């Protein structure tokens, strides 16, 4: 019998712990009271579930019974004090009262601690239950004394106002600590939840940023680019052309900058333009007279910080979707200016234009995401038909430098 009870208890405990860890398991619990109870557990917030689970694991098995024994001892000592200080209570009565009161208050406080949301949201209902409970108890006691000690009904009725009074007082004494604990915990949990959300958001942004940089890097060391460039190098070398060394140097500069920019969040505009120049020289060696380009960054803007690989992505886009598909090729013009205190970077191509290559915006999406991650709403990327070709314009806010440094 005892064995069966212990097994049952273990099973219920296991089930509850499992649900606390994975609320989806609640649907698998035995129907009836047990499922009702675990479904309550499943409805708690993840944070609440985690705390409750940690507590349950700490007080699992023997430790629970030791804790209860210690508490019972403490409450009994209170009962002794009660008996010694108030003549009204007998030894047994005082110790029993102290234990019942103590455990009731403790379980109330525990419930409030772990389910603060529920306790504070239903305090009126709780007060009514508590009051009704005490009154029912009092009435029950009255009924018992009527039946056993043949107390006259009139006496019982006479005691009713006192019963209601003490029920109200009992309610106040019993519920007050529960509600205080509940309210304290609710505030604490809310603060903790907000903090956790903020941490998760920061982590998500950081992850998205590195993913976005990785995508840009992958675009740069794309097989078509590498194999075609290596083929050009091989051909120049086979011809003994001095241009082979120059092309290799540009390829090295471009790859080196790409790899190191991958680890940096921001670079100076001068750096970014140097990378772009190396890239465009590589492309010019390959495309010959089909590609022309010019780069113009004023000295005043050379040290301005910009997100790494961002302008480069726009230039690659212009090559890929503007110049490469064009029969006659075209020119790429990259420039930076300050307008109304904002840094404006323009990438213009004279290629086939937007309508000719519809639907490919992966590179641009990436640029927009990078801008949003670094500056929020303050920066933007505009694209318009320039006939011939496309003009892309990145506008960075004046405080760009500060915002970036804070983020970094």
């Amino acid at each position, binding site marked *: 019998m005892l064995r069966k009870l212990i097994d049952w208890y273990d099973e219920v405990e296991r089930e509850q712990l499992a649900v606390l860890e994975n609320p989806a398991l609640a649907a698998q619990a035995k129907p009836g009271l047990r499922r009702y109870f675990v479904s309550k557990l499943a409805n708690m917030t993840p944070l609440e579930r985690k705390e409750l689970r940690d507590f349950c694991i700490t007080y699992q098995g023997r430790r629970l019974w030791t804790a209860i024994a210690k508490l019972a001892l403490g409450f009994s000592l209170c009962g002794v004090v009660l008996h010694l200080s108030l003549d009204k209570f007998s030894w047994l009565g005082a110790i029993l009262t102290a234990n019942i009161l103590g455990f009731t208050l403790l379980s109330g406080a525990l419930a409030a601690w772990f389910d603060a949301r529920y306790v504070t949201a239903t305090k009126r209902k709780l007060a009514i239950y508590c009051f009704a409970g005490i009154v029912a108890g009092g009435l029950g006691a009255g009924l018992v004394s009527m039946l056993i000690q043949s107390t006259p009904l009139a006496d019982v009725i006479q005691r009713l106002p006192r019963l209601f009074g003490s029920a109200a007082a009992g309610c106040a004494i019993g519920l007050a600590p529960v509600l205080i604990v509940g309210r304290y915990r609710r505030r604490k949990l809310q603060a903790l939840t907000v903090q956790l959300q903020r941490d998760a958001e920061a982590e998500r942004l950081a992850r998205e940023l590195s993913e976005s940089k990785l995508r840009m890097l992958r675009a740069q060391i794309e*097989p078509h680019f590498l*194999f075609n460039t290596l083929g050009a190098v*091989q*051909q120049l070398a086979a011809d003994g052309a001095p241009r082979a060394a120059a092309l290799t140097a540009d390829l090295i500069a471009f790859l080196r900058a790409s790899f190191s920019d991958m680890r940096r969040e921001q670079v100076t505009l001068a750096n970014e333009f140097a990378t772009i120049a190396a890239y465009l020289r590589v492309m010019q060696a*390959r495309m010959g007279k089909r590609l022309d380009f010019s780069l113009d960054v004023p000295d005043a803007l050379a040290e301005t910080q910009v997100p790494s690989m961002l302008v480069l992505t726009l230039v690659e886009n212009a090559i890929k979707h503007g110049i*490469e598909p064009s029969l006659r090729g075209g020119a790429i013009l990259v420039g930076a200016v300050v307008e109304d205190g904002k840094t404006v970077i323009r990438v213009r191509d004279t290629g086939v234009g937007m*309508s000719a290559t519809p639907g490919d915006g992966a590179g641009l999406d990436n640029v927009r995401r990078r801008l949003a991650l670094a500056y929020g709403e303050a920066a933007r990327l505009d694209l318009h038909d320039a006939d011939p070709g496309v003009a892309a314009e990145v506008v960075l806010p004046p405080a760009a430098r500060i915002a970036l440094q804070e983020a970094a």
Partner: protein
Amino acid sequence: MTTILIAEDEPLMRERLVGMLAALWPGARIVLEAENGNDAWDGYLEYEPEVVFLDIRMPGLSGLEVAERIGDGAHVVFVTAYDQYAVEAFDAGAVDYLLKPVQADRLERAVARLQAKVSQPPADLGDLLRHLKTTLPGARSEKLKWLKATVGRQIRLIDVDEVLFFQSDTKYTRVVLPDSEALVRTPLKDLLGGLDRDRFWQIHRGTLVNVGAIAAVERIDAERMQVLLRGCEEKLPVSRTFTHLFRD
């Protein structure tokens, strides 16, 4: 002497392939080095080479589109830096291809294979290519709807569907409509990629005709045919390459 056409948009890669082929296959003659897909197709019609090396990614018509038009007219070897999907299909379909940058030993093997089969009729890659073309990035799906033509001081907008036929006129293209005609500044070879192939049939290197306008096809002799149009007196010759369009 075997005739070869090479289509590759990057000058150094083109130079490389031309140089290596000259060394490895002295018995062959390179009839054209095309810089884009449009020139490759036009050059194919002009020179009718036996072997065609096609870069897959080129401006204008892609290498796959050119090969699809060539059909079984020549032995095709594709050239690509990295198009994994296409390469797998080529392997599965026993289609010749070279990976860029082209290496001598690999080209030597390709040349040996070509020499062995150049006297036989080429395989038709039609089905494989129609399937592959749509999966390649940058595959053109949008078709031309309007043409801009300068007529005197006016710029006329022409609805492509109303055109009876297009005819090449050196650097220009003659656009013939039921009641009028105009010249557009784009050469025919650069126009045809943007036109619906099911609607506008190429019947000659310099002629595209609207299928809906064809009244009849006339046989002149065993080799030659000409197309008669509704609402137009002109008769359009069909070149030998395209007579298969009208055979049962």
